């Protein structure tokens, strides 16, 4: 009885909170994400072209080399305190590219330097990006296993 009353009150309050909440500017946010995300990808394309045309890398190697360059750049900008400013402007535009992944590795590593090199930098480095590896690698193995199963059956 008390529970039902509380639930009803909570629901009523949630509606009030939603009604009075300041709104995000959807259009502006998405335009900025599009612009910055697109530009990061263009930079990636330039690097890929450089590695495949000038350095004669294969497609896969060129893509890997591009990733490494972008991650280096992101680490540098994060260290200089510039990447969080880009992120403030671009939101997902600088989170979704591989540079955002790098930022989420570098930022906690820097933040927890004071807690030591092992349990600070070492342990906290993947406190945000760790899940990406867990789910990325985990699901890739499942894909491999399913493909294996299909091979056996087929």
């Amino acid at each position, binding site marked *: 009885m008390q529970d039902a009353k509380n639930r009803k009150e909570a629901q009523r309050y949630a509606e009030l*909170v939603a009604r009075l909440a300041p709104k995000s500017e959807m259009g502006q946010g998405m335009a900025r994400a599009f612009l910055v995300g697109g530009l990061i990808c263009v930079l990636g394309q330039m690097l890929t072209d450089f590695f495949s045309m000038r350095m004669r890398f294969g497609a896969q190697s060129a893509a890997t080399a591009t990733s490494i360059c972008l991650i280096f750049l992101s680490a540098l900008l994060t*260290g200089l305190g510039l990447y*969080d400013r880009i992120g403030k402007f671009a939101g997902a535009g600088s989170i979704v590219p591989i540079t955002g992944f790098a930022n989420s590795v570098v*930022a906690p590593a820097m*933040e927890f330097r004071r807690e030591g090199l092992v349990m600070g930098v070492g342990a906290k480095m993947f406190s*945000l990006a760790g899940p990406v590896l867990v789910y990325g690698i985990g699901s890739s193995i499942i894909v491999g296993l399913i493909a294996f199963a299909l091979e056996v059956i087929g």
Partner: protein
Amino acid sequence: MSRRLGKQTVALAGGPGVLGWASVAGRKEHDGPYGDKFDRVIADEMDGQDSFEAAERHMLESAVRLCLLKTGKKTEDVQLFLSGDLLNQIISAGFAARALGIPFYGLYGACSTMSESLSLGGMLADGGFADLIVCATCSHFCTAERQYRAPLELGNQRTPTQQWTVTGAGAVLLGAGAAAARAKAALTHATCGRVLDLGVTDANNMGAAMAPAAADTLAAHFHDTDRSFEDYDLVVTGDLGRHGRDLLIELLKEKGVFVREEKLFDCGCEIFSARQDTHAGGSGCGCSASMLCAHLLPEVCAGHLQRILFMATGALLSPTSSMQGESIPGVAHAVAIEHRQGEENA
């Protein structure tokens, strides 16, 4: 004679006096509309220390020392130090107490700590358990970010309801007996808040989590003391922010409280200007504490404000409770502060 009024309020008949105060603030707070009023502004976020946490407790310690310096008291004169902060195991308060050497009760009320410590300090002074008591608290943007949110250099966006943790500290010296007679301000009532939770789970919307507790405590205070907005020059809330303040007004109206909006002063809304891009406003223990000590107490003592109700609000969540999907309980404690003539030769 019972000192209790109604269910939640006590009357402090002896009127424990506010003998002194001091505030410390960071650069961003210094750039705000009340920037010139802080007693001390730290040079940078490290304040000469080697971690953000050390900087935070150093601010707290220096606020207490400044407060005592301004009133000509020594740490040995003070019988009790009531303090708390936002960090796990209230390390700022504990470590500052270690440096100060004053007998210490550690408090946790999240951002309601300033009014919690004043309520308890007022009761202890009025009860004759101590003559000189320091009530203080602090917060720091960088320590709160790393404990509750994300590393500083992470490139994420802040939501519109999010608030900016104030880097600052405030300390108040309360006195009873002969010392109190000289005070230009006195505590007259304290209302202890109930912990309320209306199911808000968004840790980026603290104002919404705390507004129900603020409305509840305010209504209880008005009921217990038979007062209303008319009896106060200002009703001060701690850090509801713009969104939380709007919600408080709505909730009070629902409770049938007649709201004088121009008398509702939220420290979180006031401490930063709109161009400082803090979204919903300031927050943190240091928000209400530094505003109380930089602006409100001087105004009361000068007689510009005759009577205010100071009600800091706290969100009683932790990173663990947030990650486990629990909703956010809120609390608010209120203390009434009045101007006194103060006997010069007492």
